[in-house]
């Protein structure tokens, strides 16, 4: 079906599947283990549907201790474990293998503690990103990282992928907002790292865990930094007649030292899709930026003025700043419906490369040229402030060969990102999608160091198999693990 290879399932594990399932069922409460092939199928993929494979079983624990029990059993049988949050990964981070057990955190949904004086919230990691902020709303606080899937994605997945979002330009990504975790290691040991304080002594183990893509442990509880909501926030809409000029505007805003909450970029393909779907009054031009600033009224007015001056130097087609809530909603409406609108055009691959902001104009130009080369349309809608690009490659999944072409195009875009000094992923993670491109970014030594670290946490190489590291690169490690 697609171009990224998965290892051959372990025949020994497949043969032992009935015993593995029985052991899990015996040790866990009724209704926790799913193993009917009709039912495991719904867990065969996440939001990257090009790759699919049902696992042996799916475990849905309700407590950290149940996660530990499941992990211990899996270790006893040497079964790979695929951690799963809400299954919204666009990189295939939760893709099972045929010889694996999925352990999902979605039933771990308790809010454990809210402390606004010391500015933290402690939650079980199956809560959704948005529900954390919803819990805090009455207190006038929020949790800053806000991936586009924040309605559905869980904190567990956010930590695994070090998720970002529109607000991250100002507040940082997950790792900058994570204070502590409780997690389960492959042998079932439950450990706590960090806590409700700024920094702990010793090595930054928490920094290692955040963004480790389920390679090191399953995080079941998290202490998150919370921030007071600003007095107000206001967006501006700036239209340009070329993609490069819009990219230049982003670079100049960042260079000026201003820190808007968000700078969002949409190109003409995206604008046309939005126009057809959301009936916005966006200008018809090559690219639109939405820049949002926040603070007190005075701060907002000042920032808007500065950004207007910067934009004016580049002769925008239109500059509009919101005067009230309705106008703010109208400006954001199209951006918020962008992905849905794109979905109506057909299937798409959503990429996630990051480039230095100064390289945005060049990168956008090259993406356009590659689009012609591959004969596939691309739409650009992304968080421009931190150079985190999300080119959406449009294709027809039902047309033979188109997915492969789209993937080849996507790989070229990601190589381009690395070539201009950026990296493969901004917030979606490597998962399965970008696994084989890791060699483009990292040398063999670089990857060896990363795999040595995995060895410490997961000496049997059971966690989230066949992800992140190219198979040929990880082969010696996996061979050694299976011999011991």
């Amino acid at each position: 079906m697609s171009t990224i290879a998965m290892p051959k399932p372990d025949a020994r594990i497949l043969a032992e599947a009935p015993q593995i399932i029985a052991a899990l069922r015996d040790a866990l409460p009724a209704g926790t283990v799913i193993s009917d092939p009709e039912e495991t199928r719904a867990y065969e993929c996440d939001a990257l549907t090009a790759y699919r494979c049902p696992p042996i079983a799916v475990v849905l624990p309700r407590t950290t201790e149940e996660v530990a029990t499941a992990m211990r059993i899996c270790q006893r049988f040497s079964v790979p474990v695929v951690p799963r949050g809400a299954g919204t990964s666009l990189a295939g981070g939760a893709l099972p293998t045929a010889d694996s057990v999925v352990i999902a955190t979605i039933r771990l949904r308790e809010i454990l503690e809210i402390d606004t004086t010391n500015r933290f919230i402690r939650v079980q990691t199956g809560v959704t990103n948005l529900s954390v902020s919803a819990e805090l709303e009455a207190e006038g606080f929020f949790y800053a990282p806000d991936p586009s899937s924040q309605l559905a994605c869980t904190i567990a997945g956010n930590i695994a992928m070090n998720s970002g979002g529109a607000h991250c330009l100002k507040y940082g990504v997950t790792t900058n907002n994570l204070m502590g975790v409780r997690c389960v290691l492959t042998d079932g040991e439950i450990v706590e790292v960090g806590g409700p304080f700024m920094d702990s002594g010793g090595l930054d183990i928490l920094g290692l865990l955040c963004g480790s893509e389920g390679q090191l442990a399953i995080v079941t509880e998290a202490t998150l930094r919370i921030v007071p909501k600003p007095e107000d926030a206001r967006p501006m809409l700036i239209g340009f007649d070329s993609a490069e000029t819009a990219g230049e505007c982003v670079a100049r805003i960042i260079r000026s030292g201003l820190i808007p909450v968000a700078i969002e970029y949409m190109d003409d393909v995206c604008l046309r899709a939005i126009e057809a779907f959301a009936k916005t009054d966006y200008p018809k031009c090559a690219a639109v930026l939405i820049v949002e600033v926040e603070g007190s009224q005075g701060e907002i007015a000042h920032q808007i003025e500065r950004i207007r001056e910067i934009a004016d130097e580049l002769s925008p087609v239109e500059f509009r700043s919101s005067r009230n809530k309705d106008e703010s909603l109208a400006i954001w409406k199209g951006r918020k419906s962008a992905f849905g609108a794109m979905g109506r055009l057909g299937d798409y691959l959503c990429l996630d490369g990051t480039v230095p902001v100064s390289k945005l104009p060049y990168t956008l130009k090259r993406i356009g040229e590659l689009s012609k080369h591959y004969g596939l349309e691309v739409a650009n809608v992304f968080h421009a402030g931190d150079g985190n690009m999300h080119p959406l490659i449009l294709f027809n999944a039902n047309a033979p060969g188109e997915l492969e072409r789209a993937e080849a195009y996507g790989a070229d875009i990601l190589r381009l990102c690395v070539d201009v000094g950026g990296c493969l992923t901004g917030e979606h993670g490597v998962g399965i999608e970008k696994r084989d491109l890791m060699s483009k970014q990292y040398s063999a030594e670089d990857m060896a160091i990363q795999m040595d670290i995995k060895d410490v946490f997961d000496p049997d190489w059971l966690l989230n198999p066949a992800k992140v590291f190219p198979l040929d690169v990880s082969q010696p490690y996996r061979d050694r693990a299976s011999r011991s």
Partner: protein
Amino acid sequence: MQTTFTDAQLLDPDTRRSNEILRSCVHCGFCTATCPTYQILGDELDSPRGRIYLIKDMLENNKVPDKATVKHIDRCLSCLSCMTTCPSGVHYMHLIDHARQYIEQNYKRRWDERALRWLLSRILPYPGRFRLALKGAALARPFRKLIPDARLRAMLEMAPRKIPDISKNDLPQSFAAEGPRAKRVALLTGCAQRTLNTDINDATIRLLKRHGCEVVIPQGIGCCGALTHHMGKSRESHSAAAANIRALVAELDGRGLDAIVINTSGCGTTVKDYGHMFRNDPLASDAARVASLAKDISEVMEEIGLKDASHADPLRVAYHAACSLQHGQQIRSAPKELLKAAGFQVLEPRDSHICCGSAGTYNLMQPEISSQLKEHKVSKLEAVQPHIISAGNIGCMMQIGSGTDIPVVHTVELLDWATGGPKPPALAATL
């Protein structure tokens, strides 16, 4: 998502439609976040995305539905919260309707479940039979603890203690507008609703008349077909719907209609979909005409504008958004704005997008999940400390009413009261 239907499969119009829907789904998972059953059960299989997957597999492979698939499809409330959430416009309603119909045709349920479904489909849509059944239920209620089946117990629990007398207003006739006539509208008097509660239609007729509408109860109007439609019994639902379409078209072609008014939003969602239900039927164009004129009472009143709201006492009214209104018909602000215009203090409970668990016959078929949803809903409604709870759907009113002492009335009863009608009988005892 990629699909693998063959050209031969796609000749079937229902499959073709389902293929379109499946192709528009990008499997992003946003729908899981607002699905009530996923919130309770925490299993992807009890979420829209999981069900879409099960349906896809069942339809693509022409499978005889397996027990697991049927269980998870049956657990869907059809609240359509997922459709409000979906960024890609996936028409889940048509997909789940197709799946229910497919299951009904290709899966043999256990004898007791078959009997129960048959019974419900033969009783609820027929006011005469339903009245009789409710009277029987009143007699059986004292013995309900002896009944082993939770669903039958739930039915007895839900049956009201008192059944109103038949209202003459529900018979075919025409009510003249008060003052100059602005509109001529037909009222769907419903089936189960008018057996359980006659105040709603009475208040609707008074309210419309007072606002310059001639109100017609057409000859031959009956159940809209929604109840059986949601059980996958397409033969029954289509025949009920066809009878309605004929009755309404006779009025349309006779003295004409400006709108077809519906005050039970569950029915409204189905009537508005008649065009789709009959798209490959000789009745197609008539069905589309009826669907295009179908309006919820709150839409009609919003258009007319509330006159002379004289209500002085700004009672605290918690507005319960029925899923068929907020998700099925995407009507969110009209009922609240009307209540505010009528002088009430309108309060919105938290999690208003989550279903109360009534969902047609769901509270009878899935009592466990339904009662958890009821508890959740009632606690959120009570938290805003209202004098009255207002809703636009009889199913929700019965469900919520069975869990709280706060009076539950239909939004039209409050609007009628505020514009000169009598105080809603349900409030007489408490306020």
